[in-house]
């Protein structure tokens, strides 16, 4: 192969933050992908079958050891592995392979390959994405047996004796749980997304990971030097000396800051002149609450509630919602949990709802609009939230608000729900703080009117930027134009924060903009009282806030508001606060 002349940039999805530089180690089985086929004579059939059975036995034994040696924090994933145990002897795999050896008189490897592809074909037509992806389980089990048949030894991840970066097509739960922190610097995969099993484990282990790279295993060869930037979701292959140097610095600074930040993460984030900011976590599942606590979060600034509605054919019953909310609220008490009501049919699709054919779903029937059309569904959720509010500090957050009517309608539904609950004899708490997401420009423009109706604003920057700049950030042709520091966005933010202060209601932010260190002087200066972000970002953000003077930042914002371009603003921040920060603009 011709030597690669220049560094190559691969873009994926950030699975877990952090930066690492190291040698690539491809987990994909070079020797195993090419399966030999040969015929065996009649008298060898029995010995071929026992060779196969032996390989299955060994593979099962290996898996049993993996389960045995699983650390406590990964135990709850082990049912997947238990299922894999049973799959080893499944009729469609095990039985079929033996049958193929007998009838077709072929070697065990080929028979296994045949049985596997037939089993996988059975999954191809399933429409439910969750069930369809179970074919990966069959594939992983088959791979484990295959390894034992072919006798490839060095594929066991736990045997890796050098500090490497794993490069894989996809990592199975068994493989991921074998990863030993001290041996692996990070990992990158072709498949997987933010909610994938791999990503959740990476975040638990706190090693950098970039997923969904599509062709990492083809673009990268064993022992290539690669840089994994888990903060930006990208990988640089064969970096130039200059890039390498820059990233070594970045990585060192990041690690030093992280260590420093984690030591002090349970301390409040107070600016150098004594202004306190609440730094909260965004979470999706109750399990993630542990991460909020571990990283010193001052509460949950955004609890997404869509999860319970996905992958099912009916809406979840009230009691189920209540139990889930109650668990989170109780665990966080006395710190607040901000529950955002159902925000669906924008970028998420829900299986309980037949997706309407919308040409422009971002501007369509979603979030509060959807809920006000489906009052029964909405009320079920509101009732569950009111009941959960008995057990701790609950705030209610309404997404996608673009008019006062929507808020009034919701307040009416809340009152109705409370009356019903009271009639039915349930314990509930109607006296909760209610806020709206400011994520549509219209809501920012009528902030003064909205402020009369609610207790707080929470600015969702991801959507606000998208709607203000008319940029779809997942459209790669325009994604580079997406910039939260665009003067239009800054002006809208200023408008909302000024209104909130004037009307004496609180103002928070829960979007990716809040997790960028360099945005902090601006956000502090604008007078946000809480910032909410991925739990892993909390320690670094708290650390940075302590270095900033809020009074200076307020003056600084005036300057920022006079800039005419995002680029100028970035330059200005860099010049004014660059030396406080270690992460620099590229």
């Amino acid at each position, binding site marked *: 192969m011709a030597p690669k002349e220049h560094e190559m940039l691969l873009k994926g999805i950030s699975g877990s933050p952090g930066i690492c530089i190291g040698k690539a180690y491809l987990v994909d089985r070079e020797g195993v992908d090419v399966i030999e086929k040969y015929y065996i004579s009649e008298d060898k059939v029995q010995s071929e079958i026992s060779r196969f059975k032996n390989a299955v036995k060994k593979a099962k034994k290996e898996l049993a050891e993996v389960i045995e040696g699983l650390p406590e924090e990964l135990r709850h994933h082990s*049912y*997947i592995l*238990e*299922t894999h145990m*049973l*799959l080893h002897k*499944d*009729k*469609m*795999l095990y039985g079929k392979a033996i049958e193929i050896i007998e009838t077709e008189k072929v070697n065990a490897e080929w028979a296994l390959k045949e049985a596997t592809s037939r*089993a996988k074909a*059975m*999954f191809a037509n*399933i*429409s*439910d994405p*969750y*069930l*369809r992806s*179970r074919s990966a*389980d*069959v594939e992983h089990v088959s791979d484990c047996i295959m390894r034992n048949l072919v006798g490839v030894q060095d594929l066991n991840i736990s045997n890796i004796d050098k500090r490497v970066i794993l490069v894989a097509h996809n990592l199975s739960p068994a493989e991921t749980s074998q990863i030993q922190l001290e041996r692996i610097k990070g990992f990158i995969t072709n498949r997987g997304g933010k909610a994938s099993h791999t990503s959740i484990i990476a975040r638990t282990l706190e090693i950098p990971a970039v997923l969904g790279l599509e062709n990492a295993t083809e673009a990268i060869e064993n022992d290539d030097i690669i840089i994994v930037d888990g903060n930006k979701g990208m990988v640089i292959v064969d970096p130039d000396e200059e890039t390498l140097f820059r990233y070594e610095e970045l990585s060192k600074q990041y690690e030093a800051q992280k260590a420093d930040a984690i030591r002090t993460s349970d301390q409040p984030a107070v600016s150098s002149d004594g202004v306190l900011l609440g730094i909260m976590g965004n979470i999706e599942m109750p399990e993630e609450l542990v991460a909020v606590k571990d990283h010193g979060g001052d509460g949950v600034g955004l609890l997404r509630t869509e999860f*319970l509605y996905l*992958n*099912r*054919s*009916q809406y*979840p019953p009230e009691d189920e919602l209540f139990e889930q909310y109650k668990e989170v609220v109780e665990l966080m008490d006395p710190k607040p949990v901000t529950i955002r009501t159902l925000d669906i049919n924008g970028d998420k699709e829900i*299986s309980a709802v037949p997706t309407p054919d919308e040409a422009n779903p971002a501007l369509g029937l979603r979030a509060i609009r959807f809920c006000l059309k489906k009052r029964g569904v909405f009320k079920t959720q509101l009732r569950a939230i009111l009941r959960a509010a008995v057990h701790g500090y609950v705030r209610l957050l309404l997404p996608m608000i673009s008019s006062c009517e929507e808020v009034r309608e919701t307040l009416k539904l809340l009152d109705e729900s409370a009356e019903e609950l009271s009639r039915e004899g349930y314990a509930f708490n109607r006296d909760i703080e209610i806020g709206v997401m400011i994520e549509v420009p219209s809501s920012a423009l009528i902030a003064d009117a909205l402020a009369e109706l609610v207790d707080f604003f929470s600015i969702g920057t991801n959507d606000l930027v998208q709607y203000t700049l008319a940029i779809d950030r997942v459209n790669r042709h325009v994604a580079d134009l997406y910039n939260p520091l665009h003067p239009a966005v800054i002006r809208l933010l200023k408008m909302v924060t000024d209104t909130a202060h004037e009307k004496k209601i609180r103002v928070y932010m829960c979007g990716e903009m809040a997790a960028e260190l360099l945005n902090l002087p601006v956000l502090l200066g604008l007078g946000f009282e809480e910032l909410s972000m991925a739990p892993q970002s909390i320690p670094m953000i708290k650390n940075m806030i302590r270095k900033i003077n809020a009074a200076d930042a307020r003056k600084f914002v005036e300057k920022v508001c006079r800039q005419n371009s995002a680029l100028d603003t970035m330059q200005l921040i860099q010049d004014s606060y660059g030396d406080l920060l270690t992460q620099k603009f590229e």
Partner: protein
Amino acid sequence: MNDLKKQFAKNVTIKNELGLHARPAAMIAELASQAESNVWLIKNDQQVDAASIIDILSLACLQGSTITLQVEDPADTEILDQLHELFKSGFGE
């Protein structure tokens, strides 16, 4: 289906949120593999072997779908009952 076979069949509705995913499928397969003869899961016109996780998963049973459990051997009615219980309990989820 003739009358004789009906005696050894039961209808169930899937309660689990994720449908018949890997864990329930594994529980069914484990039980069904102890049967004397074949145990079948039938949905619409599709019939799969309840002793195979892969076969069960390929039936793609989402929450709310109704399927028929069927055993061939009268000796397996107890297994049929146990399977029925398992479905009713939502596989302990």
